[in-house]
């Protein structure tokens, strides 16, 4: 576009100066965004004696990571978080893809009613249903179990993801599905064999988001689990009070909790950006 090349910002600056200023501003913004994470990584690499003066000294060690990894509770928490995030992603996708498909392909009272329900429940604050869910899971014997944490996670994703999924399916021309049905495909066949494959980029984007949301979630796990199913976010929050002064260990745990999320996001970034372009 011509507009981009014509200087309208600080026109009195020579082109070189403007370019340098722009690069500096971008670098500064990037630094501001990355700083907390960089600082955390730096802290996790300092030995216990140097952790209070992260900005001084040049000793670095991986000792904190080794110490954290020898703590059985933390390792269990990591495994639990990974397991629950993965299962929640699989179940959520099955449930929300079909619900979003329904919202997109059918109009009429049933569809409007379902959309209204989803919107209303999207607004309900988590605390309003997770707090009493504590009694419910206890009376159903689900408190502090995998199922008791997994199913509420799947339930909470229904509203937002059905809504996003509806948008994705709206952008896909249904004529392919009609053609498949004329050729003798059932409705289910048209949905599973035609609509789902063409929505695959969007579904991958949702899978990435769903995994990240579940991995990062805190309130559900805090209320719905006790000691038998520790997950990483709750264990870390307990750290703050229990090991308040051992910042190197806390930073090491936090860095390890960031790694899987980063990997998922790094490989999924292109799907998310492509998938969200409705």
């Amino acid at each position: 576009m011509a507009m981009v090349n014509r200087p309208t910002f600080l026109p009195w600056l020579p082109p070189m100066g403007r370019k340098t200023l722009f690069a500096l501003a971008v670098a500064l913004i990037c630094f501001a965004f990355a700083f907390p994470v960089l600082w955390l990584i730096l802290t996790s690499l300092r030995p216990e004696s140097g952790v209070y003066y992260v900005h001084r000294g040049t000793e670095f060690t991986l000792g904190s990571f080794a110490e954290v990894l020898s703590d059985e509770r933390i390792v269990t928490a990591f495994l639990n978080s990974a397991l629950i995030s993965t299962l929640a992603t699989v179940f959520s996708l099955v449930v929300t893809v079909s619900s979003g498909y329904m919202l997109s392909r059918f109009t009429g009272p049933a569809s409007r009613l379902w959309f209204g329900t989803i919107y209303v429940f999207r607004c309900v604050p988590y605390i309003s249903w997770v707090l009493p869910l504590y009694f419910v899971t206890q009376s159903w014997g689900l408190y502090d179990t995998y199922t008791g944490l997994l199913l509420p996670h799947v339930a909470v994703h229904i509203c937002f993801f059905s809504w996003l999924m509806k948008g994705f399916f709206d952008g896909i021309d249904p004529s392919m599905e009609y053609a498949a049905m004329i050729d003798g495909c059932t409705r289910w066949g048209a949905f599973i064999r035609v609509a789902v494959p063409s929505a695959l980029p969007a579904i991958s984007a949702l899978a990435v988001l769903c995994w990240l949301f579940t991995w990062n979630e805190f309130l559900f796990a805090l209320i719905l689990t006790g000691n038998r199913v520790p997950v990483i976010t709750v264990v870390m929050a307990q750290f703050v009070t229990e090991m308040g002064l051992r910042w190197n260990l806390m930073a090491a745990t936090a860095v390890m909790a960031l790694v899987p999320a980063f990997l998922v996001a790094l490989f999924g970034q292109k799907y998310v950006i492509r998938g969200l372009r409705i």
Partner: protein
Amino acid sequence: MFGEQQRFVLLLIAPAALLMLLFQVVPIVIGANASFRNWALYNPKKTWIGFDHYVAVITDPAFLYVVLPNTFLFMVLSVAGALVVGLALALLLNRPFRGQKLVQTILLVPLMVAPVIAAIMIRWIFNDQFGIVNVVLEAIGLEGQPWLVQRWSAFGVILLTDIWLWTPWFTLLLLAGLQSLPKEPFEAAAIDGTSTWRVFRFLTLPMLRPVIVVCVVIRAIDAFRTFDIVWTLTGGGPGRSTELFSLYAYVHAFLNLDLGRGSAAAIIGGLIILVIGVVLYRLVDRIAKA
């Protein structure tokens, strides 16, 4: 009983509806029931007490003068902050420059960070004795602050953390919106020599309005129920001065072990945000149709 099409429609939403019934509707009903009873651990009979808990919550000065203003202030400032920064960054990323992909990846970093981890990082950075913020302040001759034990600085730090966490979300959705805008009006404006500011004010902003409104609605509703970062950063303190609505309900239910009062607070908050949600939805609808 049903035609083939109705059966298909119902089966498509059946799993979702069943899960929502079991894990959202049932708890809300049970929570509503608990909010009318003396549901404390020492009272096994769970006596019916009517609206007592509701009256107790809405006449509680802490709720009325601290929690509610905090929640609304937090909601407005957090959404406004993340929107302004997110929009600026989306505009930046929408123009091609060398290293654009790398910058985009860096700017999306906070999206991957769990709120709890973000809160721990920020707590460490703003630590009053060893935090880097105070170290830098003292190095340039200013006085370090006990950031997290003063009301407004603690509130500011919480707000900053939230804006840092959620800006990428706005950037991502607004960038997707910007890239789907038609090119012709911008080319016409460039030929006419319109200034960058006027292009932004009279072309980009109006055309982007539907996307902005949707982002704002989603974020506002989520900001209202913020829990993780406040819990980890200050736990509602100093005193109870940074408590938000979710924390108030949690503290009453699980720390004071008064599940009835906690449920009542959760329902009051739920009703408030439901009203806001419906009003905002109408707004979106009007803007989308206009």
